[in-house]
């Protein structure tokens, strides 16, 4: 029983880290209807700048992190000016394709600037084991979960209690109606992509701390995709709940089904879980139900 609990809690905590990456996708899709393929590249980009400034330039993290945040805001501004603005009123698939371009451009730029060698990104989150009886929890996971919880609370507060939050929600509800009351879409997009940049910085710190900073970090996107499928593309709570379900589900499947099927199943089993839920709710657990009149 204790082992089952250990696997379950470990899976839930892993799910929180998947949800963190998924959050960036959700924020942009919710506000602009764009599935931002480049979100994982933004995580890598942010991590490479933080790791590079600390390891290569000797900047302390308390300086490297805010500088990276400013850079991410600059990236958001450039993306709005160069990519999104000329694409206004284009089909969603065209916008999606343009984010694929952003994905490769961000990786390429970061690699040209910092090179491809791996770096550490240790901001001081302890990784000591914590024992509860015979059950082991990792302090790194618990602190990460607390960081993600704080981030979600902050995002919810921003969305519900600030003027810009209300503007974002208005744009999310109806672009044209929001424009008709004088909301500037271009400003909203810069703000949204900047918030996604903030999420990328946090995800970069957490995943970079766990994996080291290296190009393969973009693969964490494959952990976020089933979370998005399950939670829906428009719900922040959906991303969190789906992250927990996917994390716990794949961990339990790996331990209890893996030996029967042949092991190493966690990478694809998460998609099986997501697709099973989609049969029941195609829009995801918390996604908006699309009803169109004919």
């Amino acid at each position, binding site marked *: 029983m204790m*082992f089952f609990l250990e696997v379950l809690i470990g899976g839930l905590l892993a799910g929180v880290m998947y949800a963190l990456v998924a959050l960036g996708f959700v924020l942009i899709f919710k506000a602009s209807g764009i599935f931002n393929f480049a979100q994982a590249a933004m995580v890598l980009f942010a991590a490479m700048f933080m790791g590079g400034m600390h390891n290569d330039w000797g900047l302390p993290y308390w300086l490297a992190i805010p500088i990276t945040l400013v850079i991410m805001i600059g990236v958001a501004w450039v993306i709005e000016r160069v990519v999104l603005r000329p694409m206004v009123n284009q089909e969603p698939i065209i916008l999606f394709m343009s984010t694929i371009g952003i994905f490769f451009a961000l990786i390429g730029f970061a690699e040209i600037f910092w090179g*491809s060698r791996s*770096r*550490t990104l240790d901001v001081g989150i302890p*990784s000591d084991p914590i024992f509860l009886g015979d059950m*082991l929890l990792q302090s790194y*996971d618990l602190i990460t979960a607390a960081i993600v919880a704080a981030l979600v609370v902050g995002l919810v507060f921003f969305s519900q209690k600030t003027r810009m939050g209300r503007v974002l929600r208005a744009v999310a509800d109806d672009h044209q109606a929001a424009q008709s009351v004088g909301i500037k879409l271009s400003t909203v997009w810069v703000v949204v992509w900047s918030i996604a940049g903030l999420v990328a910085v946090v995800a970069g710190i957490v995943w970079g701390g766990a994996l*080291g900073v290296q190009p393969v970090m973009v693969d964490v996107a494959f952990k976020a995709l089933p979370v998005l499928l399950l939670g829906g593309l428009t719900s922040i709570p959906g991303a969190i709940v789906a992250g927990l379900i996917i994390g716990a589900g*794949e961990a339990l499947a790996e331990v209890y089904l893996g030996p029967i099927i042949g092991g190493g199943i966690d*990478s694809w089993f998460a998609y099986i879980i997501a697709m099973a839920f989609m049969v029941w709710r195609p829009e995801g657990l918390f996604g908006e139900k699309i009803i169109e009149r004919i």
Partner: protein
Amino acid sequence: MKTTMLRKAALMGLSACIGLTGAISAQAQEAKEQYLPSLVYRTGPFAPSGIGFADGFADYVTLINERDGGINGVKIRLEECETGYANDRGVECYERLKDRHGGATVVAPLSTGITYALIPRTRADGITMSTMGYGRADAAYGPVLDNVFMVPTTYWSSTTVVMDYIAEQEGGWENLKGKDIVHAYHDSAYGKEPLGVLRHYAEKYGFTLHEMPISPPGVEQRTVWTQVRRIKPDWISLFGWGVMNPTAIRTASSMGIDVSRMIGGIYAAQDDAVKPAGEDAKGYKAVTFHGPGADYPIYQELKKHVYDKDLAAGSGDAKGTIAYNRGLINAGYIVEAWRQAQEMSEKGRPSTREETLKAWQSLDIPEARTKELGMGGLMPPVHITCLDHEGPGMALIQQWNGEAWEQVTEFRKPNKDLVFPMYKASAEAYAKQEGITPKSCD
């Protein structure tokens, strides 16, 4: 009219002469060069490993050209092609470069996947393949793939060296009875390579082998290491690749597993396996087929003839890393094979594909020669025969001290009595499947 036509004819003749002279001159230039295509991955997800290797490989070639004026006056013309560690791009690189500048005679694909894809192509083209530790271990059995060389070791041989070290640490093979050894591996053909050897030892010496596959790329491994912790293993063999290695080390360490009892395979032995894991990697061990660090005379030569002249291939931060050293010795084996090819045919002339292959088939680099090359202790000696395309297959154990790799053992001989019959059986099965008639080595 007539004058104009004559002038045109004269001009055409002159142009043709100039063109011909240029072509002859270019050919003469090419004729003194030995072409070496270098398939590298300086970009992409595995770039942290690829950059160091590519730099070491190129710097050794530059050293030979700058210090010695080439091999008996034949300069080496190195041309890199970026594969990004992708099989399709590797094949494209090979096809694009193989006939340039007088033709490639040898290729080092630097990827197991690309090696598999290139084996039939290089066989058809008569080009030698140098697959250093990666690729098909059974290519060590020479009669089947007579153009592929596993110098200086294979996954299987190096695994026997790991087991030899574990047995020694336990006070003898007989003490392995009742022990638990975990093999945590990249869930692919690569990760499964040493399973045959490990299963053999488990059966023979009575320990329990726990096989733990990890899904690539391995960015999340909590579940695997939660299970490993429950097993309370005496030793762990790690066969990861790329990000899987530091993630495994870090996750294991954070679960209280003693990483000094983890021994990485030859591709879990690079700097990018430990550096991203930070302090958690301190004490981690790995098997490798060359000496670690930069404390070898070759580095003084490189400094004098390459680094100080600003001719180094990279930024310099890869010097002394495992990947860089592997690039150095791989280029070293290739250059020595060409040197021996010239001795067998004609000194001062670039070797043909046939001459290069013939030289590899009897490549002999004794320890004394590795010292002459400034690579004593860095480059293991090699002796190739028609039957054995691996040679001694020696490897050593190294340990990460938090800053650098330290050599824990001297080069050790593998258990060739065990692995060679395995190579033979596997290679013969491959030959049957592919319709290859093994050549006679009598």
